[in-house]
């Protein structure tokens, strides 16, 4: 019974954190920009880059890492750090909620919002990749890359329709614009992908679009960003104002440099337990070069990211346990 009550409390915290993360106008703007970039970048490529869809897949993974990293960190700082500073956290912590549970549930809510962000981007990138493959069959001899106009219309047009739909819901149904926009963009990309598969020749292009290796790489990048979000939540429990973003910028830089650093100085291999590994991006190269990739290639980075997430959540729980909350 007590466990059930704790689970209900955790669900309430995580649900509010997820809604808070998607209710921020900056979150909707980030998703809009990321989806638009994924669809439009291949449309503006003028040279073939080795194989069809490479720019779409690389662009999708890059957007997931960069836009997703900013989204996850921003949401974590807001739902944990700013709530502690503003007093919203105090209103929750006077309830039968332990501080460790508060941190973990809030982080889970942020991760849940980021999962929606990643879900939209993965469908957008898959559609964009299929678009490039279909377009490659229409290319002339001048070497100019083509994309499927239908896919572009479905993906980018779907995003525009989603924004218009959110504006309509805001005007006539009094729904919050950012959160509605976020949800509609996500579902627009799923619907666009499903509709594209009904077009002649598009479903057949899925194999050439390297969807399976792309999904493995996306799972690895997702896990790396999740561990970064956990670090952001943990640091937000103690750092105030600009200190939290500054510390996160340091963690992000360390995450990018860490693989090369550990390779050069193996004695510091223990850092892998604390620093999110953004080096998993080598998987994107693997996808791009069409190299055969076994699922275990993604399992290791995911396991490593889970270990790093656990480290930061434990550190965050220790940091918040004795701090004054006013």
């Amino acid at each position, binding site marked *: 019974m007590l466990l*059930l*009550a*704790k689970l*209900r*409390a955790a*669900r*309430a*915290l995580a*649900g*509010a954190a997820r*809604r*808070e993360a998607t*209710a921020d106008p900056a979150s909707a703007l980030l998703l809009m920009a990321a989806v638009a970039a994924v669809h439009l970048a291949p449309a503006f490529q003028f040279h073939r880059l080795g194989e069809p869809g490479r720019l779409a897949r690389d662009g999708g993974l890059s957007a997931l890492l960069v836009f997703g990293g900013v989204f996850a960190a921003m949401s974590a700082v807001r739902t944990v750090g700013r709530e502690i500073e*503003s*007093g*919203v956290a*105090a*209103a*929750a*912590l*006077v*309830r*039968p*909620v*332990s501080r460790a549970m508060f941190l973990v549930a809030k982080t889970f809510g942020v991760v849940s919002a980021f999962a929606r962000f990643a879900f939209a981007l993965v469908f957008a990138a898959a559609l964009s990749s299929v678009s490039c493959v279909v377009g490659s069959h229409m290319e002339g001899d001048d070497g100019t890359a083509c994309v499927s106009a239908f896919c572009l219309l479905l993906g980018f047009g779907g995003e525009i329709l989603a924004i218009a739909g959110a504006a309509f819901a805001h005007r006539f149904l*009094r729904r*919050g614009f950012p*959160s509605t926009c976020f949800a509609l963009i996500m579902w627009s990309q799923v619907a666009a992908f499903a509709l594209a598969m009904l077009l002649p020749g598009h479903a057949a292009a899925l194999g050439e679009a390297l969807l399976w290796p792309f999904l493995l790489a996306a799972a690895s990048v997702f896990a790396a960003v999740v561990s970064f979000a956990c670090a952001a939540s943990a640091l937000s429990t103690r750092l105030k104002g600009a200190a939290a973003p500054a510390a996160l910028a340091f963690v992000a830089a360390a995450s990018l440099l860490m693989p090369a650093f550990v390779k050069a100085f193996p004695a510091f291999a223990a850092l892998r337990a604390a620093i999110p590994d953004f080096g998993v991006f080598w998987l994107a190269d693997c996808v791009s070069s069409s190299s055969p990739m076994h699922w275990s290639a993604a399992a290791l980075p995911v396991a490593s990211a889970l270990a790093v997430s656990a480290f930061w959540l434990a550190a965050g729980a220790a940091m918040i346990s*004795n701090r*004054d*909350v*006013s």
Partner: protein
Amino acid sequence: MENVISIHSLKKTFRDFWLRPTVTAVDGIDFDVGKGEVFGLLGPNGSGKSTTIKLILGLLSPTAGKIEVFGSSPRSLKVKARLGYLPELSHLHPFLTAREAIRYYAGLSGMSSADSARRAAELIEQVGLQGAADRPVGGYSKGMARRVGLAAALVAKPELLVLDEPTSGLDPIGTREVKELVRSLAKDGVTVLMTSHLLGDVADVCDRIVILAKGKVAAQGRLEDLLSRRDATSFTLPGVSQEEAAAAAELLKSRFGRDPEVSHPKISLEQFFLDTVKGGDAKATDAK
């Protein structure tokens, strides 16, 4: 009487990033709050009221001294399950509606979805938010947000209710409703600890008070004992004319050898306002 809150030699010193002491907000205070009491915590700005409340709620850790709520540490989850808290500023998620906000706090208290929906409906009616329950609280006035905060404080049927400036932002009718609610909760055995700058509100509902000044207890006791003038006695006699009053004053002077103070008893401005507004409502109804 069983004590719900016991505070002994409580001290809280805030420190900066380098752990250097910056200010001692609470400096060795002692007081107890008994079960079913309405207890007022008073003091000027910076006297340590809010810090004391946050120590009682387990949000701050004491630097020295002892604090017990229901005989345990205020950080205990079992203690928190018996508490309700209305903060000075209603910290609500602006994107939630009043109903969702109350259900959110019900969820934090471990209530099931069905129970939280039922309790939210009850409380929305109790705090008078029926017409606005499904609007986001971000667009609420201060008084309406206060009502949501009060509903959130009551959601888990607390045994100890901590109210920080409960009537701030409320109109006189809302203020009266809150005071009546406090009295009725106390009658049902709920212990209430409240702070307020509106001393009239405190006088209306509190059994005992403590006055803090510069982090120390300046006075404490039963309101009746603190406010009674033991060196004087007043009589109220209805239906007395001016001449009769003058004759009575003369009689008292001749008997005791001192000039008595003769005046008409006054009602409070709040009572006058409520009578006027209710009278206006009645006239408006008659006119219809």
